[in-house]
């Protein structure tokens, strides 16, 4: 299992991309984002709260996300994040970059 912490630029940039991706299907609260990443990665990627929340707030400040308070599925008050137009654009750019980067890394690793 990989833990995503808030150290290192590559990982942090990756975390932001994952958060954007998690929110693509609709608004989620912070816990939901973490859960979705964990489940979708089949428990490989585990997002630490200490990295998640600063990232969420930073992205909100930068206008990639917007937040509103609403009721959760079990009827608690929760902060829901959703993508802005800016955020969707960023997600597109990031996934493109990620695709290039990972295939490049794969090439390198497969070289004999």
């Amino acid at each position, binding site marked *: 299992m990989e833990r995503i912490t808030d150290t290192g630029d590559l990982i942090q940039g990756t975390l932001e991309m994952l958060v954007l991706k998690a929110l693509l299907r609709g608004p989620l*609260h912070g816990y939901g984002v973490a859960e979705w990443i964990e489940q979708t990665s089949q428990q490989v990627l585990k997002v630490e*709260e200490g990295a998640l*929340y*600063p990232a969420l707030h930073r992205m909100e*400040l930068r*206008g990639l996300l917007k937040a509103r308070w609403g009721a959760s599925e079990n009827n608690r*008050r929760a902060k829901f994040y959703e993508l802005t137009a*800016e955020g969707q654009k960023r997600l597109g750019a990031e996934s493109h970059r990620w695709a290039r980067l990972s295939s490049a890394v794969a090439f390198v690793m497969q070289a004999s």
Partner: protein
Amino acid sequence: MGQNLHEFALRIKALFLKRRMDHDMADELEFHQAMLKEKLMRQGLARADAHAEVRRRFGRPDRWHERLRELWQFRRLENLARDLSFSVRVLRKSPGFTIVAILTLALGVGANTTIFSVINGLLLRPLPVPASHQLVVIGTNDNSLRVNYSLSEPMFRGLERKRQVFSDVFAFNHSRLQIKRAGGTENVQGQIVSGNFFSALQTPPLLGRTLTPSDDVKGGNPAGFGVVITEGFWQRWFNRAPDVIGQKLEIDDTLFTVVGVMPKRFIGADPLDRPEMFIPLSTELVIHGTTRSLTAAGFHAWWLTVMARMKPEATVEQANADVAATSSTILHEMIPDADWVANREKLHFQFTAESGSTGFTYIRQYFSKPLLAVFAMCGGVLLLACLNLASLLMARGAARQKELATRLAMGAGRGRLVQQLLVESVLISVTGTIVGLASAPLVSQSLTRLLLSGQSQTHVDTALDPRVFAFAALVAIAASLLIGLIPALRATSSSLNEQMKHGQHTTLARGRQGILPHIMMSAEVALALILVVGAGLLASTVVRLYRSGTGFDPRGVVNLAFSMDQQPLKADALTQFYRHVGEGLSHQPGVKSVSFAFIIPFGHFQWDENASIPGGKEYDIYENSIAPAYFETMRIPLLDGRDFRWTDAGSSGLKIILNQTAARLLAPDRNPIGQTVIKHQGKKTVQYEVVGVVGDAKYESVRSPAPATAYLPMTQQDEDETGSYSAVVRTDGAAAPLVGAAHALAAQMLPELPMPEMTSMEEMVRDSMSAERMMAMLSIFFAFCALVVTAIGLYGTLAYATARRTSEIGIRMALGARRIQVARMVFLENATVAITGTVAGLVAALLASRALASFLYGISTRDPWVLAGSIITLAMIASAASLLPAIRAAGIQPMDAIRCE
């Protein structure tokens, strides 16, 4: 950019909704924890275990808050706010230091702003007309190297016709105009202006039209002589009547028609003049009559200020080259006297043009140099104030080393500490600047009053315009950096970490502090010495000027100037009139004696002619026309012969009285009484008999020695002279009622004569030294401030340093040092600073005082008394400032001092 804006808006929101933000963050985390706990319990953990696991994963909640909150903050801004409130607290904790700091700086900034605003008003501010940079002033120059800014009417007309690079060439001169009103006349300040004056200055009239070249022709506009009045005069005289255009005004017995009204902001081309009306140049001949007219005097009378507006593409250099090139042509065309022209050409006569964007005023020639000298002194005071504050802050920084070192050790960045210390000095300098600026207008008004006390008609606009504010801001910024940066950098330098280890028992502390504080304090002492020496020299100049005497006794003498210009009395009738007024005045209470004089000493008029005795050399002799008893009234000693009498009429032979210098010059080898003095007037030769010799009396100014002077009796004046004499009255009673009395007496014979104008002879003497007096007063003030500031600095730095050595001194005493030894040790610390500063200051003062040489009178720049006196004054002040900390150090109780560690 949009993103930054979005971020900025959110941060601002966070700044204001801080409490809600905190609340929301807590809620968000709590929700996450609750969800996590539920999940763990679903996975089978016990409630307590789940709780512990969540606690373990999240850690301390306050650290979370801190991290998230930091994201939302304006970090710099909030740090700054925190520094600011901290600085305010620190400064309020030591009110003495704060008040001294603010006041010294307010003094420095205030004085500089004041002097700058006067310089601005006098020298820098452009005329309030469109595109003032296109204006030039035209002068003439020959071998004498000094440009002369007065031109004769024919020269001006020649220039006006040529133009070339100019769109307009215009001339003007101030003139006192008499306006007839019901029951008398009133004197009004006016200007005589040429036809293109208004078109060159490009200011549209409020009502009617301006004067044009068609008004400035011989005989005036066919519709009559035109006059343009100002808004102020319109208000005062016509009560803003809308039908003022076309109204008649009787100016100097000539009928003028009001053709236009100029708005208030229009002041003409002399920035210090506030004329109330403008009349065409061509009418000067009419109002003054051929005998008095300067126009009629042609190329002999140099009286017009000539300026021009350049075409937009032209430069001042082009204009200068242009007028220089036409000089010869204009001379030949306009001046009928071929000999005179040839003579001028031999001297390389040339017209010159220089920038006239600030207009032209004669006052500048007299005051620009003294003002710049005062400005330099002012800068010295400011520098001194800054050095002083920097030294004090440095000493205080040293006293705060423990606090700062602790903060450094706790992880505060050096930058943050420097910022905090800078905030403190900026706070001081901003407050000081504001206090200084607030007091500047008041001070500059009184300064200009002092400066221009002799010129009642001048107005220096010292208003705080953007230029003054920019200057003050610049001064404030420079001051804060100077004050704050050095001490802040020093106080936080890394080696100081060790200070904390040493605590207070740092015997090496002073040594380690280095030489910089010593240099700064020495520089301060040196600056103070320079200022004190300057003040001493200037003050002795004024004293010497007073003591040099005028040759007469001005105390208790008043002058009453009659303007007889438009009166019908001539020759004998005029003499009778003055005799009658004099008789009447001599019976007024307190009046001791009364006489009359054509020219009042220091009254800015001069009359000189060449004279000789038969067979002797010709000399330039100053002259004056006076009534009997003039010497008695002025207390000028009659050395030989007799005074004039009312019966000395021309018929019994022309009489003359010489002063000592003139007598020695004209008749060096014989008794002057009874000699004949010859003057050539045109082709005539006039002979005078010397009837008396009197003591020398100064004529033009207190600075220049009494010239060779000849006095003529008013009883033998020429038929066509105007006869505007001043009554010279010696009285020990009140002077004010004399004006009314003189007017009443005069009205018996001349009912329409305007009120005579009164000046006191003492004022005339004082005003003739106004530049020297201003410099002396200001320099004494600055020197006094410098001494006070230096004393505070010497005391303050020593007091801080001694306070830091308390335990060391305690140990010394415990080891047997006597109190007197301790006191001497502390005292000597400042003595070295004072001595270095004095030596440096003395050298600098000797060099700098050369710049003052041209302002001094009767004293050398190396006057030993002034130098010695300055050093003694400074030494005494420095000793007094050092004694207090020394005494305090001697009073330290060894046990207390050591215990407090």
